[in-house]
């Protein structure tokens, strides 16, 4: 289990540039299609354990996110982009609860 993995950050250039300084793999993208393609590539290569994705992009790629939701790798985690939080990340927790319990209980 000693394999090392990369951490990727996908988003618009302004949102991801900071992460580059931290040594994460940043993938600035300009369109949703590009982001979609990138996520697929990264997931297939299997080198990324965590992919941070900005909510602005995530809004239109629910299908891709759902596809990797039940897999151990990669973990796709939504982060607010530069324009602020859209509440999609919070909603996804809500949905996880609904899925598990069958009703919204919190």
């Amino acid at each position, binding site marked *: *289990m*000693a*394999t*090392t*993995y*990369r*951490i990727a950050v996908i988003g618009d250039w*302004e*949102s991801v*540039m*900071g*992460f*580059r*300084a*931290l*040594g*994460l793999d940043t993938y600035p993208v300009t369109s949703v299609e590009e982001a979609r393609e990138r996520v697929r590539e990264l997931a297939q290569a299997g080198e990324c*354990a*965590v992919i*941070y994705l900005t909510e602005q992009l995530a809004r239109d790629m629910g299908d891709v996110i759902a596809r990797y*939701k*039940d897999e*151990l*790798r990669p*973990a796709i*985690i939504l*982060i*607010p*982009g*530069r324009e*602020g*939080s859209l509440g999609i*990340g*919070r909603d996804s*927790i809500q949905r*996880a*609860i609904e*899925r*598990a*319990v*069958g009703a919204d209980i*919190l």
Partner: protein
Amino acid sequence: MANITVNPTRMELTRLKGKLRTAQRGHKLLKDKRDELMKQFLETVREVRSLRAEVEEELMTVHKSFTVASALMSSEAMEQALLYPKQSVELTQTSQNIMSVNVPVYHFQTKTKSDADIYPYGFAATSGELDTAVDALGKVFRKMLKLAEIEKSAQLMAEEIEKTRRRVNALEYVMIPNTQEAIRYITMKLDENDRATTTRLMKVKDMILKEALEERRMADAQAAERYAAQAE
């Protein structure tokens, strides 16, 4: 209900009884599993919620300071400053087993040891705001990694709970009642057969007795006739 196509035999009855026992034990176990998973899941979810709120808030601050930095510097200079990272992060993943759900645990090592040594640029050409932004991002990153860990765990647990819940329900409302129904059907059928056999036996016994009686009467009559003939 449903499956009345079972063979009403003793062997089938024994088989079904075994099946019912297994189903009931499985149901109890799965129910326990579901309850425990749910407990863990709710704990995790609470943690995720508060951590996510924190991370989002802090990230917004970071974005703000980056915006300020980019206002003070040209975007080319900014790009140049951040182009080649000094720091690199290596992530190792182990998994932890919570009630048969494998959840990830991340450990990360950074290349440079000190947090103060992460700036990939010289200080001369960049604004101080950028340092603040990068520094803040470095701090929030730890939380982000923790968030990734528990949010993924929550997702994986949600899936497992859903599965377990379905199994529990299927056992409770379909499998167990059906088997019980089948057992009842077989028992009744077997009892009915028993009664039928008893009646048949009684009937046969009656017939045999009647025959025997008739024979005896016939013999008696013949004997009486013989006696009468002798007497003459």
